[in-house]
């Protein structure tokens, strides 16, 4: 068992929760990142482009601030090349078709006690675990 990042995990998670509460309280929106991005990708379909772009810029800015004031980004990639492209395509198609990702379904949806989001989260988490089992253990 790898050592868990307990303090960082809990405080980082609390920050993610706080950001989601702020967004709902102030501008009435759910913090679903695939949905926020989706509204930018299909910019014709939405009139509220500016806040979406601002949130996405903020995400990147948050990581830049971390680099400036805390230290190097904890980033060790696992997939490379074609595999990374295939994974990206699947994440894009899947979050669009399934109306959400880890933030929208996994955090906000569960916090809203949505059975739809709980079902989605159990599905993508279970499938991701199976995928890791197959690529890490069954094939290797």
């Amino acid at each position, binding site marked *: 068992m790898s050592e868990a*990042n307990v303090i*960082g*995990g*809990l405080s*980082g*998670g*609390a*920050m*993610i*929760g706080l*950001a*989601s*509460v702020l967004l*709902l*309280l102030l*501008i*009435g929106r759910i913090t679903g990142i*695939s949905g926020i991005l989706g509204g930018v990708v299909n910019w014709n379909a939405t009139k509220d482009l500016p806040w*979406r772009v601002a*949130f996405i*810029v*903020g*995400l990147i*800015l*948050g*990581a830049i*601030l*971390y*680099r400036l004031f805390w230290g190097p*980004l*904890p*980033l*060790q*990639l696992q*997939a490379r090349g074609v595999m990374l492209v295939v*994974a*990206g*395509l*699947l*994440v*894009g*198609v*899947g*979050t*669009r078709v*399934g*109306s959400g*990702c880890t*933030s929208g379904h996994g*955090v906000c949806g569960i*916090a809203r006690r949505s059975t739809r989001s709980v*079902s989605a*989260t159990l599905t*993508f988490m279970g*499938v991701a*675990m199976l*995928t*890791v*089992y197959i690529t890490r*253990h069954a094939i290797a």
Partner: protein
Amino acid sequence: MSKIVVALVAGIIFGLGLCVSEMINPTRVIGFLDVFGRWDATLLLVMAAAVTIAGIGFPLVARRAKPILVDKFVVPEKTDIDLRLITGSVLFGVGWGLAGLCPGPAIAALASMSPSILMFVVAMIVGQWLASRFEG
């Protein structure tokens, strides 16, 4: 304007949270997903903390007639668990398991200027766009 500032600040807090929790790191994420390997519980702690804060905050916010800066809440209203939801979640799960990256961390990780991350994000955007082409 104030909407933009709020979204920017919320994005920054969220992005910092992803870094502090190390959920920006695919190795941590795969470590959680690898239940038959060296299991890493971090992602579970992150979700527990985030869901707890949001689970307390959302019902309090919902008592208000409207958000502070705009006229109405825009929240998902669908409740049915249909084939679309499950199919999409399966596809997302495969992609998440292959790379250990989901949309939030992938976008935040653009800050690393890594060409691999950029490639993933472009593929993700293309995927979203392709899927939207087939929507009715």
